[in-house]
Every structure is written in C-alpha cells, then in structure tokens.
C-alpha cells in the first residue's frame, strides 16, 4: 500500500486535499494546531473588540427600532466571539488564556476596530463595509479544513450577512433623508472606505503565509483577490446610495472586468496594526477594565458552584 510510505504530515495533507474535515481529536501537525489557535482566537478577539465601536452608539441610537437592531447586532458579535473561542478551546487553549492574550496586547485583532465611530452614519458604514468585508473572508472559511472552525463560520456567516444588510439599510435611510443626513453618510464612507479595503491584509507579495494557508484551506483566495472582489461588489452599492467612493483612481477596467483602484496607504495600515491608531489604547483599556472589574464576579460564581457541590455531597452522605 502506497499510504504506508507516506509520512504523517503527508497523510494529513492528503486528507485535507480529499476535502475531509480535521476534527479536534485527530492527529495534526503542531504547526497546524498553533496556526489555527492563533487564527481562530484572533478572529474571536476581533468579534469581541468589534462590540466596542458599535456599542458606543447603543445609548444614542436615533430611534427605538434602530436601538433594538443595534443591540441585537452587538449581541450577535458576542455570540460569534463565543463560538470562535469554543472552536479555539478544542485545540487546547483555555478561555482565561485567550482573554489574557487579548488583554495583554499579545494577541492581535482586526485593526479596523481601532478607528473611532463618530457619527450615527458609522453604524451604517460599519455594517455595510466592515461586516461586508468580513463576510467575504468568512464565506471562504466555511470550507476551511478544521471542522470546528468551519462549522462556527457557517453559523456566523448567516448573521453577518444580516448585519451587512442592516448597515446598508441605515445608509439608505440617510441617503434618502435630509441633506445633513446624506452628508453624514458620505463622511462615514470617506472615513471607512480605505480601512475597509485594508481589512484583507497586505498585498500578496508581502503576505508570506498565503501558500501554507492555501494548503490548509484557511485561504482559498489571496488577499488581493478578495480585496478586488470586495471593491467590485461595493462600488455599485455606493452608486445606488448616490455616494462617491473617496478614490480618484477608481474606475471600471473593461479589459480586466474589474474595477481598478488607487494605492493603499500601507504606512497607515501598519501604524494601526502596531498600536498607533486613534482607538487602540481605549479598546484595550475597555476590555481590560471589563475583565478586571469582573474578576470578583467570576470568583464568586466559582465559589458558589463549589459550595453547591459540597452541599449536595453532604446531603447524600
């Protein structure tokens, strides 16, 4: 049998190539495990940090309907964080470790959340563009090789596309509203456009992990391919809104069958990744405060459940 001569690594890769899912109890190369812990937890952290810029507008939402929708959306993101942390936990990391990595700044999360949400229109732009960009990545991940991750993505994607429509609908209302509302929408697009297309990560030439990620089906398309897909799908949506995308080089390229677009300011991108965005400090400070101020609560819940166990044991004895 040919298989017997294959190394464990090769057999593992063969399973993935055949389209099998890898499950938590299966053997896996250490690098696969580590990469997945890193990627899944980063993804989970992004959901959790992502609650903050939108949570920022819950108390100021303009109508009861919008407030309820925003509350539900931010709650969904907490749920996404939970699914993803559970998926990461299957690989042998605990929730406490995950939180410690996030709070200490050791773990990364999507840089987009280090931009401020300064107007109500940002709730529209974030849903439309940020959730929109996230979906493109996440739809791809529903077919990824690691089973728990892929299944988490299936659940998450349904909600994300709802978020995107909700965000777009906020933009539509603004654009059909008074002049000051449309201006608010344009201003939000101006601020969120470039950070959104940066969400797909560095250019392919500068993205060394792509080849390995493709083999493990963490990626099926490169950063630049995904970015192009996002631009192509978003430009017509902006036209319907009657908003202009803040890129003078943006134009349809008949030959390529895609939009050409201008040069991304990668210096800004790396600055924010490295912690120098407007909101990096505040986001981490808020997470740390929530965690630290919650310590006595978690301690008490644990102590209480231990007491309950003891009491039951005494009753039986």
């Amino acid at each position: 049998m040919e298989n017997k001569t294959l190394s464990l690594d090769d057999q593992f890769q063969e399973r993935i190539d055949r389209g099998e899912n890898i499950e938590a109890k299966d053997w896996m190369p250490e690098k696969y495990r580590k990469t997945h812990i890193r990627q899944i937890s980063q993804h989970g952290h992004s959901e959790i940090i992502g609650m903050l810029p939108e949570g920022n507008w819950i108390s100021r939402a303009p109508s009861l309907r919008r407030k309820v929708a925003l509350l539900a959306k931010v709650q969904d993101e907490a749920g996404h964080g939970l699914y993803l942390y559970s998926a990461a936990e299957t690989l042998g990391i605990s929730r406490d470790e995950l939180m410690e990595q996030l709070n200490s700044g050791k773990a990364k999360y999507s840089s987009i959340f280090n931009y401020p949400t300064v107007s109500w229109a940002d709730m529209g732009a974030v849903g439309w563009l940020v959730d929109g960009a996230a979906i493109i990545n996440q739809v791809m991940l529903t077919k990824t090789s690691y089973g728990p991750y892929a299944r988490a993505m299936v659940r998450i994607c349904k909600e994300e596309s709802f978020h995107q429509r909700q965000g777009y609908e906020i933009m539509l209302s603004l654009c059909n509203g008074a002049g000051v509302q449309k201006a608010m929408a344009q201003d939000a697009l101006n601020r969120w456009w470039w950070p959104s297309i940066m969400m797909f990560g560095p250019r392919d030439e500068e993205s060394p992990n792509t080849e390995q990620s493709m083999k493990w089906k963490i990626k099926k398309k490169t950063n630049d391919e995904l970015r192009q897909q996002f631009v192509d799908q978003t430009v017509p949506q902006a036209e319907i809104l009657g908003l202009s995308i803040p890129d003078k080089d943006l134009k349809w390229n008949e030959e390529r069958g895609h939009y050409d677009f201008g040069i991304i300011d990668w210096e800004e991108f790396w600055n924010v990744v490295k912690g120098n965005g407007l909101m990096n400090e505040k986001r981490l400070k808020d997470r740390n405060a929530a965690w630290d101020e919650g310590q006595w609560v978690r301690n008490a819940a644990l102590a209480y459940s231990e007491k309950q166990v003891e009491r039951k044991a005494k009753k039986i004895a």
Partner: protein
Amino acid sequence: MLKERLYDYLLHLGDNSMILGQRLGELCGHGPELETDIALTNISLDLFGQVRNYFQAAAAIKGDGATEDSIAMLRYENEYKNTLLVEQPNDDFAHVIVRQFLFDVYHQLLLKELMSSKDETIAAVATKSIKEVNYHVGFSSTWLKRLGDGTEVSHDKMQEAVNKLWRYSLELFKPTDTEIWAAESGVGADLDQLKPIYLEKIKMFMDEATLGLPEATVFQYGAKSGRHSENMGYILADFQYIQRAYPNMKW
C-alpha cells in the same frame, strides 16, 4: 379624560422598561464575561420590545403625528414617569444585579395582574412579556444568590448595593393619580395589593442569598411624577441626542 389617563398609564409602564433598558444598553460589551453580556443585552432587548408595544399604543391614542419615537425621545425630563430605581447608574455588577432584581420581582407581579387588564393592548403585551420577565427574575435572582453567597468580597459588594438601592424600591408601589385610576378602572394593577407580596418575595430571595435588607430605611419617591435624580438628565442627553440635534428626520 379616559384617553388621557390611559395614555399616561402607558407611559408609566413604558418608561420604567425604557430607562432600565437604556442602562443595560450602556453595559453592552463591558460585562464580566461574555455570557452575562449576552444575557443582559437580551433583557434590554426584551424591555425595549415592550416599550415599543406600549408606545405604539400611546401614539395611536395621542394622534397628531405622534410616534413611538416622539413619545420615547421628545419629552422633557420631568415628563418621564419612570422610578428612581431604574435610573440608578451601573456602578458595578453588584448594583446592576440588585437594581435588576428589585425591578424584576415587581415587574413580574405587575404583569401577572396586567394580563387580565380591561385594556386589550395592555393585556396582550403583558401576556407576551410575562414569559420574558419570568426569565429575567430567574437571571437576576440566580445572580443575587451566586454573588450574595459566593465569596466574602462578593457578599460585601452585594450587601452594599442592597443598602444603597433598597431606598428606591418602594416608589414602585406608591401609586400616582394615574395608577390609582388604572387600578380602579381595571386597566392597571392595584399596587397596594402587590406590595406585601413583593416584600415577602424579596425577603425570601434575600435570605437565600444570605443578604439582609437595611433597617430604618428612608425611602425616596418622586420620579414617577417627574422629580428625577441628577442621573436622568445625563441618560436623556444620550438617549435623545440625535432626535434633538437633527429634529424631524427619519432614521
């Protein structure tokens, strides 16, 4: 006259849920763990769902272009009829839980009565909402026990929150003219009847949680007829911000 009374009663019902929902909304993303964040957001969502039902009915009564949002967001501070309890700040998780618990037990008793209200809308909202509020009582009373009977630290924090918040509890049961009308006409609940049941329930849960009610409390009243604490202005500054800054627009 009757319409005005009914309108006013709907505001009594809606405002408590709304201001508490608003306070819980401020917490979203800042809870001690993801699970409690999700649960408190759920409660906030339930409360705002009820508010929308009450205020849609109120808007229909008022007419003249009134909407759920104009009723929710375009009143002056002294026109809000919520109690002092629900406007108290999210000082820490102990205060959040105690505030919630003191309100939930009242809310459950109230809705049980309102299920047989002579007003169809109120009866329908109460029938729908009672299931939600049963869950709220379960949530807050469980946390009351966990934290009251958890560690020494948590016990002390909870007792402190009880000592601080208990003084706002009985306002829930001191009827305004509108609430007296509602009880007499069969539209609303008779708060005098509910009060002893409330006190008994609260004591039972507090005992289980190894917490005590403070003695010689000087109770605080007034918000239901428009005399709010300083908190209210700040709540409304957030809550009304967009409606005030950009009047007469659709969102």
